[in-house]
């Protein structure tokens, strides 16, 4: 046990498979870029996660690409990408002088495409690969890889073969049984799972009668989704042994603590950075204070420390 005075001595590091992070807070893919360096010291972060890249050049989706909702946002940015070569030439060097490990998020329309891109980005300076398998699988009628355990297993198996870097698999919440999908990823050799990408949603402008997104549907993120993704994090953490990285609606240190208690080893922060660009270092500071106040010498002891009720009435409907 700790006294409040020892706030400086708290061990904030967490272990995500073979990687040790100096703290559990990192950006979510697609919600981070070099611009943040103008606001705070990027070396404070636990890790970096790039916007998802693809092999080929892509424009991204039709405008408008974002819409506000109740305590959340919809996006249909798509994956505008300058392609692999531009990534290697322009983006990778930016991170070279920085300390936190760099996680490169990748996507492809086929399992083989995923494998090829994973191989091609397995380079010095890249600490891990995050496979964003929420993208449409061209070999399965355009359904996302991540919606079924079978297609997840297929793509993860090929990825595992293609790279020896730590492999994180980012799951989709748009599925019936995310724990089953996580188990599939684990059994094919994923080193960690990220829970989760955005939840498919929609909004309509009642003046114009048009969808608020040019792409009609898009992904919901932000505070509104936290209860849903937190539940999935809890379910996945109980289903797998590999580390779980929680991601959905985290906007302050308390939110991050909820994810840790539910079983996450680390967390990613997305939308909140759009509203408060310095929110990640604030969350790191808040986690340190929380540990000090509650007497945790090691932050990682919070992971999975949820106190479950002794007896929960079973066989009951949630609603």
């Amino acid at each position, binding site marked *: 046990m700790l006294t409040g005075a020892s706030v400086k001595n708290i061990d904030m590091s967490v272990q995500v498979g073979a990687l040790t992070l100096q703290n559990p807070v990192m950006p979510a893919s697609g919600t981070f*870029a070099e611009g943040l360096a103008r606001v705070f*010291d990027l070396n404070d972060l636990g890790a970096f996660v790039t916007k998802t890249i693809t092999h080929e050049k892509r424009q991204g989706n039709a405008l408008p690409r974002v819409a506000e909702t109740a305590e959340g946002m919809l996006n249909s940015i798509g994956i505008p990408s300058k392609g692999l070569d531009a990534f290697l030439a322009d983006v990778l060097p930016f991170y070279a002088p920085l300390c936190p490990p760099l996680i490169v998020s990748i996507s492809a329309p086929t399992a083989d495409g995923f494998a090829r891109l994973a191989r091609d980005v397995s380079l010095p300076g890249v600490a891990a690969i995050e496979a964003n398998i929420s993208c449409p699988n061209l070999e399965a009628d355009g359904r996302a890889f991540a919606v079924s355990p079978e297609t997840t297993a297929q793509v993860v198996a090929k990825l595992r073969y293609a790279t020896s870097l730590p492999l994180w698999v980012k799951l989709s919440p748009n599925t019936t049984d995310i724990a089953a999908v996580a188990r599939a990823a684990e059994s094919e050799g994923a080193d960690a799972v990220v829970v989760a990408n955005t939840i498919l949603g929609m909004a309509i402008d009642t003046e114009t009668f048009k969808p608020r997104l040019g792409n009609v549907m898009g992904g919901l993120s932000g505070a509104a989704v936290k209860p849903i993704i937190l539940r999935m994090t809890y379910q996945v953490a109980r289903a797998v042994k590999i580390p779980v990285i929680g991601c959905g609606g985290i906007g302050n240190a308390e939110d991050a603590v909820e994810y840790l208690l539910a079983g996450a080893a680390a967390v990613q922060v997305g939308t909140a950075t759009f509203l408060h660009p310095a929110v990640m270092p604030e969350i790191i500071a808040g986690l340190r204070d929380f540990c000090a106040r509650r007497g945790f010498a090691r932050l990682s002891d919070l992971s999975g420390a949820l106190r479950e009720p002794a007896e929960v009435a079973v066989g009951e409907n949630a609603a």
Partner: protein
Amino acid sequence: MTIVQPRKAIFPRPVAEQALAVLANDPVNDDYKHLVLQAGQPFTQAQPGQFFHLLCPSGDGLAAPYFRRPMSCYRADPQAGRLEFLYKLAGRGTRALGGLHAGDSLNVLGPLGKGFRLHPDWRHILVLGRGVGLATLAPLAEAACASGMRITAILSARRHDLVMSAERFAAAGADVLPVHDDDGSSAPENLHQILEGLVQAGNAPDAVFSCGSNRLLRLLQDYGRRHGIPGQVAVEQQMACGLGMCFCCVRPFGDAAAPEHRRVCWDGPVFDMQETHEC
């Protein structure tokens, strides 16, 4: 692996997020208000054409909007420690801004984006703006004046009494030409004549600047192309992050057949006029 030890920051950090005190928030006319905040650095370092991202409060019984709202810097005064905005009451966010009173506070992020560039060789610039676009152009005129440039300012408005900021342009030493819809002087043909008149009088500007109107943009693009006059335009686009991270604010630029998508918040909001498709 061992724990990574943070090293010293290697980037400058010219952008801040902070709650600033409201000094005044007075109506300019029925549609526009003028907001004055107490601000220190880096806020008052804002350059003409740069913008801030404002976290609007809740208002009218509605919850606060989720996204910030981008707003051009109308004046940044490091001496007085003030940051000012001129804004139109449009939708939920700006209406909520309208409800602020002296003593309230407003969370401000910035300064953001790339502003206007003034080439040291230029001796005479022309600014052509309308409506709230004048808020963006006024600081440019003052900066040009400080660099010893001559300024011609054509200020367009619906009615005589709606021309905003004319006194600021005049104080910057600009030749102010107000044009209005009610007497037809703001019509494209008339503006065309005024612009051509400058060339004919040997008084052609070295560069032209505009903001916020497609009609004026097209007029100036044509003018610039015909007379080889460079130009810059500040464009608007819906924004989420304001820091180049989300790619929601892209617009097509350059070659019309194969345009390139650029981020308004990061690559702009000021762009080369000839590369801009519309604004």
